[in-house]
């Protein structure tokens, strides 16, 4: 990243090479820009617009202002999904990071077989969310059916089941980031702490952890945003079940997270709710983007300190 500034200023001169490149802009930029417009920019703008409309099909969209947002915020299932997701994201954040750091710490102590262990811990990260959900639903059913219940019948099991699944998948990933951080801790600092007679715990908390703060920030936010954006695993493990029916007849899926709630609002039985679903999607985007921006500020500040 250090090179950025010097390269930018070097380019101010615009040598002949740049001028000849411009003739080829259609070849270099054309495909990416066209596809990016189709696959991101246009759907994004249209999505913002449609969140302010009442529509069943895009072509008969009718502008209604912020009504959809009001209905989205008043929707009990959306509120429930938000708090459920927030609780899930925080719980998974804490558990994943503590376990991933512990494993990474142990694997950087020069223990025999560390490479093999690392391979094993990282492996689940490559399996897709849908397949993971199916594997774990078999395992949980295998255990719970002995007690005459199922993960689809009890929302507490659904919650912790999903936590276990996500931990299994993501610990290895976070572990890799922590290992990279731990290996960058200056050896002479650890040596100095040892000579000064610091205990293992003192060294860990006073030397190691302050030195890997950037890794901790990255992993914290990664697991937080992963928690908020979780979809495949949620769909495949419980699909939102069990359902409770409210007094006004509306249904609440107890283990439904935000992304799944948006999906179900879009493609559920109530076809007149697409506008509300799009408004929910915009709110969801604002939430996730805000987390991303906070992360950026944190990491930037840490970089300056170093």
């Amino acid at each position, binding site marked *: 990243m250090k090179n950025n500034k010097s390269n930018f200023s070097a380019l101010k001169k615009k040598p002949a090479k740049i001028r000849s490149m411009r003739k080829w802009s259609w070849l270099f930029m054309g495909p990416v820009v066209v596809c990016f417009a189709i696959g*991101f920019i246009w759907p994004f703008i249209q*999505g913002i617009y449609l969140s302010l409309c009442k529509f069943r099909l895009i072509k008969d969209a009718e502008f209604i202002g912020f009504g959809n947002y009001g209905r989205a915020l008043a929707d009990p299932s959306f509120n429930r999904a938000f708090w459920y997701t927030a609780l899930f994201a925080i719980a998974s954040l804490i558990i994943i990071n503590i376990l991933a750091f512990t494993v990474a710490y142990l694997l950087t102590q020069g223990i025999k077989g560390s490479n093999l262990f690392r391979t094993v811990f990282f492996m689940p990260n490559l399996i897709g969310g849908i*397949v993971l959900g199916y594997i774990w639903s078999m395992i949980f059913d295998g255990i719970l059916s002995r007690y005459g219940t199922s993960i689809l019948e009890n929302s507490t099991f659904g919650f912790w089941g999903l936590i276990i699944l996500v931990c299994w998948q993501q610990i290895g990933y976070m572990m890799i980031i922590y290992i990279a951080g731990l290996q960058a801790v200056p050896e002479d600092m650890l040596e100095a702490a040892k000579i000064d007679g610091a205990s293992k715990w003192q060294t860990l908390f006073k030397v190691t952890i302050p030195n890997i703060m950037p890794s901790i920030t990255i992993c914290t936010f990664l697991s937080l945003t992963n928690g908020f954006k979780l979809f495949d695993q949620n769909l495949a493990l419980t699909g939102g079940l069990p359902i409770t029916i409210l007094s006004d007849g509306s249904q609440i899926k107890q283990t439904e997270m935000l992304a799944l709630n948006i999906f179900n609002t879009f493609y559920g039985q109530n076809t007149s709710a697409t506008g509300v679903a799009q408004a929910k999607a915009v709110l969801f985007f604002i939430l996730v983007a805000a987390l991303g921006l906070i992360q950026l500020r944190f990491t930037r500040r840490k970089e300056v300190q170093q």
Partner: protein
Amino acid sequence: MNTAGSLSAERRRKTVMSIVLALVCIVYMMPVLSVVVNSFKENTYVKTDTFALPDEDSFAGLDNFEKGMTFGNYPFWKSAGYSALITISSTALILICCSMGAWYIARVDSKLCRIIYYLCVFSMVVPFQMVMYTLSKTADTLKLNTPWTIPIVYLGFGAGLAIFMFVGFVKSIPIEIEEAASIDGCGPVRTFFSVVLPMLKPTLISVGILEIMWVWNDYLLPYLVLDINDYRTIPIHIQYLKGSYGTVDLGATMALILLSIIPVIVFYLICQKYIIKGVAAGAVKG
């Protein structure tokens, strides 16, 4: 004497740790092992004796694999083929188009280029749910809803991360090398393909691995874009089977899951070094 004693204590402690971690690893592998075990069991035993090894009664041989092939009125090999086709073509398209675009953005660095670059960075924080409805309708309108055209959708939605990573790397390459090439008479196209592209190799591998892992495992985008009666990828196929829960043959499903994770694990064991490096590089993006 004292130091020797503490050294051997240290060594003993490490051996104990090693054994403990090995046990943890075995537990960690249990879900995958139970897929292997259950794919050889008859359906009824999967639910009742999930963790038992197959015995004379429950052992089903290769029946599950045979049954699974035509499960859900859709041949499994077809969904595997579509998955492979979409993954390979999308990844190739993203690598070539985004590396070209990123080089242009980094070197020309005009106002327009910067706007496109910041739009790409912006797109990385946008969750798929935000655009899923409009994107799938747009793809339908433009007839991008087949496995042969869906790479265009993947390029569009995945361009952000790839451009971001490539631009970061191109900026770290000294421009003098390219200038030397252009003095020697290379046009921009030749400079890119014979000078820049070879230097981009480490980033090509990192980005390639991230894209492969994303596209191969992706469920929602192909589910919404493709017509799933004709075209299914592996995740769509497996979720479709789960949709008919209860009546579904669990043994055969486990056989399919085993078949679908074998290529992933083989790929992982072969390119482990690159995968871990690529994942760590992509993590910075968040």
